[in-house]
């Protein structure tokens, strides 16, 4: 018990007191995902480092997938496993998907949130969730 309290105190001191609302709630929930998806997808399609991976895909299906990704990265409800991430990106890894491409996506995600006026510490948390999928996405 005492040890737990110490840990909590250490965490609060290091990161500031955690508000009660979840990350997803703080970001604005589903409405935030809806607002972000067009901006994010437009940035991705306009980014010459990565847009070749999106050539010829069905844009509506792709946007729905991006919504699912954003929901997850925003800390919202999802049922994706690491295995799903591997399967979903395997064909892209074959086409040369690498860390640089992954970084570009995370960068676009951050820029999207910044454009929507999201606070820096929340953007950091979203980036950390996205980061946690890196090895699965890249099939390592």
């Amino acid at each position, binding site marked *: 018990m005492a040890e737990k309290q110490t840990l909590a105190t250490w965490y609060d001191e290091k990161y500031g007191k955690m508000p009660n609302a979840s990350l997803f709630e703080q970001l604005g929930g589903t409405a935030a995902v809806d607002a972000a*998806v*067009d901006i994010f997808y437009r940035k991705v399609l306009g980014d010459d480092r990565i847009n070749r991976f999106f050539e010829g895909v069905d844009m509506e299906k792709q946007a729905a997938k991006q919504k699912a990704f954003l929901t997850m990265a925003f800390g919202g409800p999802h049922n994706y496993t690491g295995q799903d991430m591997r399967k979903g990106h395997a064909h892209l890894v074959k086409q040369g998907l690498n860390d640089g491409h992954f970084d570009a996506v995370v960068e676009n995600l951050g820029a999207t949130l910044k454009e929507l006026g999201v606070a820096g510490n929340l953007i950091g948390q979203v980036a950390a969730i996205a980061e946690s999928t890196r090895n699965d996405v890249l099939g390592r």
Partner: protein
Amino acid sequence: MTNIHYDNKRYELAENQSVLDCLNGHGVPVPYSCRVGVCQTCLMCAKSGTPPAAAQAGLKDSLKLSGHFLACVCQPTEDLDVALPDDALLSAHAIVHNLELLSHDIMRVELECLSSFDYRAGQFINLVRDSSHVRSYSIASVPRLDKYIHLHVRRLPHGRVSGWIHEALSIGQQAEIRGPAGDCIYVPGKPEQALLLIGTGSGLAPLYGILRDALDQGHQGPVRLFHGSRDLHGLYLMEELRELESRFPNFTYHPCLSGSEVPDGFTAGRVHEAALREIPELKGWRIFLCGHPEMVKMTRKKAFLAGASLQAIHADAFNVSHA
């Protein structure tokens, strides 16, 4: 107790069970991915019954209006008769009321349906020549304005159904139709929104329906139709469209020609390029794209990059069948 009807079978929904879990649990292979109502992989269509609002959250308005819903988050309190989107078609018999050439290779087919057949302008039906020759045609009529279902059938080289329609079909003949399907429709609301309609060839059919539907429902914002063809005899209904232009000050008609001969009053160039040159900033616009599949695909992307929301882009790509 709520029942789910699928493919003429009845499945009882357990407490707190989703339509997806119920059907998958009984071996019906409904595809799915995220299972939280986001990715739209499990999209289904209610043929009767009203899906709960929560199962339609995030869907395009036109999909909501046509009864689509997400099975993974659908826990209805009333019975639903459901189908996968491609199988949600009704079969009906119709009589050919009239046949009229609109251009050298486009025939207007007017069909009188023998049973009630609810549709919206811009949706499509499948016309059955025989069990192995079925083709999709988009609907140019508006139920409120037109007594019959209007199709614009372009005669394709070696077209097994279009050739039959142009040569063999006769007035008074009976034909089977299936449908309607598709969500490239005008959804009432946002009457001030600007509408951009771009079509090639007989892609004018759904646009002609959508356009008259919107104007008849009192749409106030600008409505701009760009219809393109290579040369002059590929354009049709020009008089009717000019007439609409004079009746509705918010409507403008832009006939475009991509060939070398471009008379006065026509825009030179490919129709989607002309439209995007004329309107480079599409933020807030509602867009309809119909006709050539490559044109539709390319323009969807360009319109999105020009600021249009993906949810506001409606498309009907005319893929040619070789069966």
